[in-house]
């Protein structure tokens, strides 16, 4: 049958082109919006990380806090955050004392003014092994007051998106009340006389 002379309509080819272009545009809009919702791997510690505080002693005279830790978990760790409580009304220790670390005596180093790493070596490694113990010393400044309790959050070095990251293990927080070694009576009297004089 011959095609009529007065046929009107859009060419089928043009129609296809229009459809394909609209689909591509709408796909681009939806993709742009949705791609940020793709969940990526989270930065978190493995279960089984654990550090216990064996001893936490504060000497009022020398204002030195000595802290003995043991890794009783299943993974090595690289360091820890340390916060103290110096106000009896507070429940949560919030004052970070990493900067007070005596690096030489502790054979450890301060990281970014907020964390303590177990090794004085510059490389980031999980050096504190399972079953190991160590003692660190902190020189507490007078303006911080008397530490009453402390809390540590272990840290691990892990690879994330092909980069080395230091990960906070919030699920392995450890707290302990600080034992305060008070000054002897004579020392208290000497200090009072010096302050009055």
């Amino acid at each position: 049958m011959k095609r009529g002379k007065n046929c009107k309509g859009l060419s089928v080819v043009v129609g296809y082109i229009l459809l394909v272009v609209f689909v591509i545009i709408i796909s681009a809009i939806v993709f742009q919006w949705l791609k940020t919702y793709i969940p990526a791997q989270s930065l978190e510690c493995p279960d089984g990380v654990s550090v216990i505080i064996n001893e936490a002693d504060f000497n009022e005279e020398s204002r030195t806090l000595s802290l003995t830790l043991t890794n009783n978990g299943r993974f090595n760790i690289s360091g820890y955050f340390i916060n103290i409580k110096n106000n009896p009304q507070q429940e949560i220790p919030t004052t970070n004392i990493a900067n007070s670390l005596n690096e030489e005596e502790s054979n450890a180093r301060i990281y970014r003014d907020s964390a303590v790493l177990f090794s004085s070596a510059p490389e980031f490694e999980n050096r504190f092994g399972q079953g190991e113990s160590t003692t660190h010393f902190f020189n507490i400044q007078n303006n911080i007051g008397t530490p009453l309790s402390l809390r540590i959050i272990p840290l691990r070095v892990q690879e994330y998106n092909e980069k080395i990251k230091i990960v906070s293990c919030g699920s392995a927080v450890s707290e302990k009340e600080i034992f305060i070694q008070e000054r002897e009576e004579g020392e208290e009297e000497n200090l009072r006389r010096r302050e009055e004089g």
Partner: protein
Amino acid sequence: MEKEIYKKGISPVVATVLLIAIVIIIGLIIFLWFRGFTQESITKFGKNVEIVCQDVGFEADYSGGILSVSNIGNVPIYSMKLKISEQGRERTFDVAQEIAEWPGSGLRAGSGFSGNIEELSEEPIEITLTPVLLGISSDGGEKSYVCNEKQYGKEVL
């Protein structure tokens, strides 16, 4: 006898090119117009900030007028939305703006904060804290985002 029909018109090739050009232009207009309806996406660490809210971890306490917060997660907390319910009213504050002790760069991982909030409320009945994160908006600038209170907010009193 066949009638001679004198047809006028443009070449089919030119017509096709014109049609395609018009479709692309209309498509661009629709794309730019529709983009205004979608919520601006704020990203942090390459992910949508709403997903990053799931990774935030913090502990908080209120005692004797002192609010204490400790960041035990790996996401820095830019600020906190503090909602205080008192007798007959409810008020909301931005901790970073209202409390001087809040660190200017936010609460980094492992950090803590404590500040007196008695000036804001003397007799609170209920206090809820919701983390506020700082992300990057689609135009490249920094923008804050308040996490969903029902999912990520914590009652400290």
